[in-house]
C-alpha cells in the first residue's frame, strides 16, 4: 500500500484558519481544502483550533464547507470527542479520528465510535503521564491499543499508531527512539497496525524545517511509517516520499513516478 499523506493545513492554530473559524468564513478553509487536494493529499486534517467557542458546532460546519468543494476524506482532529462525533455524522466518506491516547476511558469512547462510523483511529503511544522517551514504552502503549482494537471489533489496520515525535531541538534523543518504535510496532500483529506521525513537529522552531521534515520522513518510511500529517504543499517532501515508496518497491517505477504518486 502506498504512503498516505494527511494535509495538516486546516488547523485553527494557523492564523487564517483560526480567524475563519471564529467568523464562520468558509473561504480560507475551502481554499486550503482545494490546494491540498490538488497537491495529492489523501486525507485532510480538520482541527477547529484552541480558540473556537463551540467546537461541536464549528467541527460540523468545517466538515460541511470542505465537502462542498472536494471529496477528499477527512481526518477529524480534536480532543473533544463530541466535536469529532458531530463531524463523523456529516462525513460522506470513511474518516480518521485524530486522536486517542492509550487511556481506558478515552478508548471506550473512541473505539466504539470508530466502529459505528467505519472510521480509522490515530492512536497515540502515550497516557496521562505524557509521552515516554524510550522505544520500549512507546511499543508497550501500541500493544495496548492493538489489543483494544481487537476487543472492540476493529482490525489492526484500522489503527494508525502515532509514536509521537518531538521537536529535535528540544528532544533530540527521541528521534531515534521513534524510529525504533516504528520498526517494532510493525511486528505487533498480522496484519500489522498502520503508523503515522505529526511530521512537522520534528522541526518545530528549527532553522531549516523542510530539510529536517524531509530527511526524517524518509528515515521513518524505511522503518515502517505508512502515513504522516504533513505539509502536502512542500513539493520536495512529497517527491522524497514518492521516491522512497518507489525504492521500497511499493510503487512500480516509471519515468514519471513522482507525478503518478500525486495522481493516485
Amino acid at each position, binding site marked *: *500500500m*502506498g504512503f498516505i499523506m494527511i494535509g495538516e493545513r486546516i488547523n485553527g492554530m494557523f492564523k487564517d484558519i483560526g480567524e475563519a473559524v471564529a467568523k464562520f468564513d468558509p473561504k480560507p478553509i475551502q481554499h486550503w481544502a482545494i490546494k491540498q487536494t490538488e497537491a495529492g493529499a489523501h486525507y485532510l486534517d480538520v482541527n477547529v483550533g484552541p480558540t473556537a467557542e463551540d467546537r461541536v458546532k464549528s467541527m460540523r460546519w468545517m466538515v460541511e464547507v470542505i465537502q462542498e468543494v472536494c471529496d477528499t476524506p477527512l481526518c477529524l482532529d480534536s480532543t473533544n470527542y463530541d466535536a469529532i462525533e458531530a463531524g463523523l455524522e456529516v462525513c460522506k466518506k470513511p474518516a480518521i479520528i485524530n486522536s486517542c491516547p492509550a487511556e481506558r476511558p478515552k478508548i471506550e469512547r473512541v473505539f466504539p465510535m470508530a466502529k459505528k462510523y467505519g472510521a480509522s483511529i490515530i492512536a497515540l503511544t502515550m497516557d496521562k503521564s505524557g509521552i515516554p522517551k524510550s522505544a520500549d514504552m512507546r511499543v508497550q502503549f501500541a500493544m495496548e491499543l492493538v489489543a483494544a482494537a481487537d476487543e472492540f471489533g476493529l482490525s489492526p489496520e484500522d489503527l494508525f499508531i502515532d509514536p509521537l515525535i518531538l521537536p529535535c531541538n528540544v528532544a533530540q534523543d527521541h528521534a531515534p527512539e521513534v524510529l525504533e518504535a516504528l520498526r517494532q510496532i510493525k511486528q505487533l500483529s498480522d496484519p500489522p497496525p498502520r503508523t503515522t506521525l505529526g511530521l512537522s513537529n520534528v522541526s518545530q522552531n528549527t532553522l531549516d524545517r523542510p530539510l529536517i521534515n524531509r530527511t526524517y520522513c524518509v528515515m521513518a518510511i524505511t522503518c515502517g511509517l505508512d502515513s504522516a500529517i504533513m505539509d502536502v504543499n512542500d513539493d520536495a517532501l512529497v517527491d522524497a516520499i514518492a521516491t522512497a515508496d518507489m525504492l521500497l518497491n511499493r510503487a512500480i*517505477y516509471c*519515468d514519471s513516478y513522482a507525478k*503518478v504518486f500525486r495522481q493516485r
Partner: protein
Amino acid sequence: MPVEILREKFTGKVQEVVLGATKEEGGTRAYTVKLGGSSTLPFLQFEGEVPNRPAIALEIWDIKPDWHECFVPYYGDVWEDPVAWAKKAEEYGADIIYLRLRGADPELENSRSADECAKIVKAVLENTGAPLIVEGPGFPDKDNEVLQAVGEAAAGENIALGVAEKDNYRSIAAACMMNKHCIIARSPLDINILKQLNLMITEMGVPVEKVINDPLTGGLGYGIEYAYSIMERARWGALIGDKMMSLPLICLAGPEAWRAKEANAPNEEAGRGWGDQKVRGIMWEAMTAAALVQAGGDLILMRHPEAAKIVKKHIEDLMLPNAY
C-alpha cells in the same frame, strides 16, 4: 469459536474497458464485451469481485497465413478471404475478432494500401457481429497510415487499434481519440515502460477506460514465467490503487504458443513422449492460454479453434463462485 477467513483488503481494481458498440450505442455490433473490472487477484471470488470473465479473441489475417498445416481443416477454405474467415471465427465461438493486417507489410510484393485495409475492415464489420480488434502490419510509418484509415472507416464501432509502443504511440492514439476507439498499448515485457506508456497515452487525452495493455507474453517453455510475474505485479499494482497499472491485459497466447517447436514439430521429429502433433499443438496453445488466464489476462488471443474451445470451458469452470 468460528473460524475467520483472512481476506486481503484491496483499495483498487482493474479498470473496465468495453469493446464494440451496438446499434443503441452508435455502432452495428451484435453485442459488446466488457474486459477487466476485477477487485481481486485472478478468480479469488471470495476476496473480491470478478465481474467479467476473461474473453477469447480469435486471430485472423487479411492474407493467407504461414501457419502449420493442422489449421487447414479449420480455415483452409476461407483464409484467402478475410470476411469469410471472420465469419468462421465467429462460428468457432470467438468473443472478439482480432484482425492482423499483415497484407499491408511494405516489404511484401503487393503491399496493401491504407484504403484497401480500410475496405477490408469495413467489409468484416458489415458481415459479422463480434467486436473487432485491428492490428497494423508492424512497421511504424505504415501502421500510422493504415490505422488512421481503419479508424475512420470503423467510426462509431468502438474497435481497438494496435499496437501503440513507446516510440510510436502518438498517431495511433490520435486515431483512436478522433474516432472514439480503444487502443492497445504494448510494452516489451517491461512493467516500467508499461506504466510510462499508459501515462503518456492518457496524457494525450485518450480516456483511461479506452486503453488495453499488451505486456507481451512468452510461450509455454519460452519465458512464460517472466510474463506471468510481470502480469502478477501489474495486477497487484492495480489492486493497491495504482491507476496507471489498472488497465485490462491482452495476451497473445496463440501466436506465442505456435512459435514453439513443440507445437509444430511433426511426429517423426518429435521428442520422446511428445505425442501426436495434432493433440500436442492444441494442448500447447491451451496450456499457454491457461497460464496467462491465471496470471490475470483479461483478453486471450487464440489461434486454434479447438484450443480456444478448451480454454473457454476452463474459464467457465474458474468463474464458478468460490465465495465462502
